[in-house]
């Protein structure tokens, strides 16, 4: 059978159209999305990079001005606040939501009664859009009809809770709201990780005489270390894109105290007609993201290579 069957396709002058169509289908199906992601990611990134070096104002123009836009951007106090906020927010938001998410996951992992209910409750905030979260929490923070007014109504008349009214604390209001929104998401990922740990490992630790906390610290959590990294990376890109949460919660205020880079970019580009400087700010956001993601992807590549060597 083999000799004949193998030689015929090679000798045949044309492959049948069905077969050709068969090989074409995957390419045809993937082509639009490949083209779209190439254009939207790479072409527009390069275009924005060029715009950031141009004298564009209301409309894109192509007079080359070098790094002028970056210089004026960094000379602006509001941008400095926005960039500082970005790091402050990212740090607290990621650490906070991971810590709370991990705690919730560990508590649920103790085989609590009604586990599915708890899981749904904690995961629910993620189903709510940032706009809704921001709006609802802005009411809660509002001194006139929020938590402060409620507690005062109960009788504690000098109770004070007005984070968003103070320019020094408003950023923490944003952080708390962000943590509330996404710790359930972190919990879901951690819980999946905890459940994937070989139950024999925990039994072995039990026989070895390790306490529950030691078992978690030394055996279970190190085993799910990759999940920590995955959660952190997902949260970081949430944090850097933060726009709608702040827009709905504080509108960048009081004053400019909760301005974020994304808000600032939007402002420069579409409100003030400074597309060149807006593009420069957008490039700085990309840089912030790259600081995190480039080492991460290098690490992934490195790990894959070392695993390939050992495997």
């Amino acid at each position, binding site marked *: 059978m083999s000799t004949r069957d193998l030689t015929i396709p090679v000798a045949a002058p044309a492959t049948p159209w069905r077969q050709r169509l068969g090989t074409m289908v995957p390419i045809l199906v993937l082509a639009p999305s490949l083209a779209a992601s190439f254009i939207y990611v790479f072409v527009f990134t390069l275009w924005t990079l060029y715009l950031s070096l141009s004298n564009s104002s209301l409309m894109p123009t192509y007079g080359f001005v070098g790094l002028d836009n970056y210089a004026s951007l960094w000379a602006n106090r509001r941008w400095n606040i926005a960039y500082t906020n970005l790091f402050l927010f990212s740090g607290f938001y990621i650490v906070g939501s991971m810590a709370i998410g991990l705690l919730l996951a560990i508590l649920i992992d103790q085989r609590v009664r009604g586990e599915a209910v708890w899981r749904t409750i904690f995961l629910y905030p993620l189903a709510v859009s940032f706009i809704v979260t921001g709006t609802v929490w802005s009411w809660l923070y509002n001194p006139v009809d929020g938590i402060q007014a409620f507690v005062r109504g109960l009788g504690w008349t000098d109770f004070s809770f007005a984070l968003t009214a103070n320019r020094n604390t408003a950023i923490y209001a944003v952080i708390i709201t962000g943590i509330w929104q996404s710790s359930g998401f972190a919990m879901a990922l951690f819980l999946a990780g905890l459940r994937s740990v070989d139950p*024999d*490992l925990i*039994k*072995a630790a*039990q*026989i070895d*005489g*390790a306490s529950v906390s030691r078992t978690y610290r030394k055996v279970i959590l190190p085993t799910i*270390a990759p999940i920590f990294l995955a959660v952190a990376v997902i949260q970081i890109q949430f944090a850097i894109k933060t726009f709608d949460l702040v827009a709905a919660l504080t509108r960048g205020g009081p004053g400019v105290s909760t301005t974020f880079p994304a808000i600032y970019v939007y402002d420069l580009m579409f409100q003030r007609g400074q597309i060149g400087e807006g593009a420069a700010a957008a490039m700085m956001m990309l840089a912030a993201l790259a600081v995190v993601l480039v080492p991460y992807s290098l690490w992934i590549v490195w790990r894959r290579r070392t695993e390939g060597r050992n495997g």
Partner: protein
Amino acid sequence: MSALMIRDLHKSYGGLEILAGINLEARTGEFIALVGPSGCGKSTLLAMIAGLETVTSGEIWIGDRLVNSVQPKDRDIAMVFQSYALYPTMTVRQNITFGMESRGVPKAEQAEAVKRVAALLQIEQLLKRKPGQLSGGQRQRVAMGRALVRDPKLFLFDEPLSNLDAKLRVDMRTEIKKLHHRVGKTTVYVTHDQVEAMTLASRIAVMNQGSVQQFDTPKRIYDRPTNMFVAGFMGSPAMNFIPARLTGSTSISVRAADGSDAALALAAPLPAGAPKDVVLGVRPEHIYRFTTDLKSRKPAVESMQAPVELVEPTGAETLAVLRLGDLEITGRFEPDDAPVMGETITLGIDMSRACLFDPATKALL
């Protein structure tokens, strides 16, 4: 003194009974195998001895201590798991010392213990590696090292060889046997592999559906299985079960391939009150090609005719499928003397090694 004693142990989850009254005891230094098909409760029993499962009722004694409500870490046991359960983020050394560190053993003493165990298992060169960089056999050794370093009263093994390939399994089986010989610790070993149980254990507990069917030495279990389950489970190829009728106090008849009845004399008379219908159990290696010479060497051999349906040479021995009435039986022959397919041979059945069972109760008569 017995190192392990189990009295009337029950375990149920809700209404489902997993273990129904287990009684076992292991003398100090003994190697006990718990063997049975999956779902027979053997792993649950081991987990209960380890303290990883609660006791519904009954008693577990380790040494002279009732341990029903003692924490696993305080039971003075060590366990080797089927998946090895090595801590993946720790080196081999850390894996071995983790338990001692949890119990606060001084560093110097830990180092000494690691050295002793590593030398015993020949894993000195692996101490700095992580489990992911080890082969299956090496992981197995490390898992045993982690158990050995405790110097416990009782070793528990939960199907430790079932993740290894066939050749390695045989090698490690030998090693476990040597190791037990050298260390001399009381061991409880769970397996579904009857060969492992036969080769390793000083006594075997054959389990089925949550109860111990027979608890005895490998030889007794093999030669005098207490019921048809034990007889069928232990031994490969399995024991042949042939329906037979009692025709006198010392003779039975079985249906031959041509529909006629063949009379076989029993080696010993049956006890009074035995049923008229019985099941004759014959192991494949107790079926021979009948010769007068054989009869003179083994007087209890009885003969009958049987056509050969199929021959399976395995190298060391040749298995032949023979027709008897409407059932097929397997015989084990020397390759040089093996029957050929289609031939009708005169069988010799060694009745002194045969077992008779009651078909109603499945028990040995």
